[in-house]
């Protein structure tokens, strides 16, 4: 039991001894010997290491899907917009991730249409717009990132060129609404 709990806590990223090291001696012994407190500590630790569904304002006219780990909105014409949080591992700044993503997308064969930065309430982000064929159509694929210390918000949007163009401004507004995890 203890071994599995310890394993769970390690998986969550914080070993037991590290989590309780900052407590007073009395509290520490109470925590270590009270199973309820241990479970409570476990829950708090696990919850603190899980990102919530990103709080984003959906683009106007998009239907929002209830999902557990990410925010997804889709327009009536099928333009998709998704935002999720990922761990900032290895912890790097915005410039690093911008370069890494650009190299990856270039190398994969996407044609870059544009690139720029945007402002959110919690700081700056960047986006790229890529062109790729889907069936007989040209599609635009937007990839955007904002960095919030140990988390990064990753946004994607895609639509056929005419439809993307129609919703582009609304998508940009939604990007600006991306906030840090609670």
């Amino acid at each position, binding site marked *: 039991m203890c071994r599995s709990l310890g394993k769970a806590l390690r998986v969550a990223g914080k070993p037991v001894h590290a989590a309780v090291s900052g407590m007073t001696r009395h509290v520490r012994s109470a925590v270590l010997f009270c199973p309820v407190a241990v479970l409570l500590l476990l829950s708090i630790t696990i919850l603190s290491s899980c990102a919530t569904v990103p709080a984003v304002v959906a683009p106007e006219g998009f239907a929002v899907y209830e999902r557990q780990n990410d925010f997804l909105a889709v327009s009536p014409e099928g333009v*998709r917009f*998704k935002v999720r949080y*990922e761990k900032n591992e290895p912890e790097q700044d915005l410039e690093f991730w911008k370069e890494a*993503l650009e190299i990856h997308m270039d190398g994969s064969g*996407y*044609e870059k249409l544009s690139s720029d930065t945007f402002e959110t309430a919690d700081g700056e982000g960047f986006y790229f717009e*890529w*062109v790729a*064929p889907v069936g*007989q159509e040209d599609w635009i694929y937007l990839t955007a990132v904002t960095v919030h210390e140990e988390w990064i918000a990753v946004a994607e949007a895609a639509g056929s060129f005419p439809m993307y163009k129609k919703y582009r401004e609304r998508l940009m507004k939604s990007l600006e609404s991306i906030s840090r995890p609670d």
Partner: protein
Amino acid sequence: MKQLSRIGILTVMVILLGSALLFGQEGGGDKAVGGSSGEDAGPSEYLSFSVQAQLLVIDREAAADALVEWVEEQRGYFIEKSLQSVVLKVPVEDFHKLRTIVQREADEVVSYDVNTFDLRQELNSVQAALASREENLRRVLVFLDNTDVVGTLALEREISSLMGEIESLKGRDRVLRNRMAYAEAYIQLSSMGTDIPSKRPSSFPWINTIDLYSFLEEQP
């Protein structure tokens, strides 16, 4: 009898060739670059321009028609026109207008790359080879006047070979002069001609998840 007819054919060939050489000397050849010969042309006249552009357009047919109409107004022409791409031959003096026209017709310009080639070396090489073959032919024709029937037959093969080389070099010369007179613009109206992006592994797990096609396959 057979030999006499061969000599007759050869004589006709020689007369035709002689007149062609004379015509060439008098300046009747192709002079696409401002009416001057390659040797007289200024440095910029040896340049050949080409453009590779990729556009995004909502109405591809209308864009292709507009680009072709424009190039024809400039006394250029098109080599290919489809819903995927157009290939235009733009008179070099109007080449600088092309970017503006492309931007006007496109909803988005993904890329516009200009390449410039200096054809001076190749043109000079073709002209030198041509002059050399023509000189050889003249010499062979001089020998032909003073040879017997057996000698004539031996020279026949040499004359045919030289004539073939001269025609081929003249063709190459015409192509080079056309390239100097007209810029070639390859304009893609869609990304469909390009390779479909493929998944490429990254050291960073979240970057590996960034892919348009996986994103579209995801169930809401």
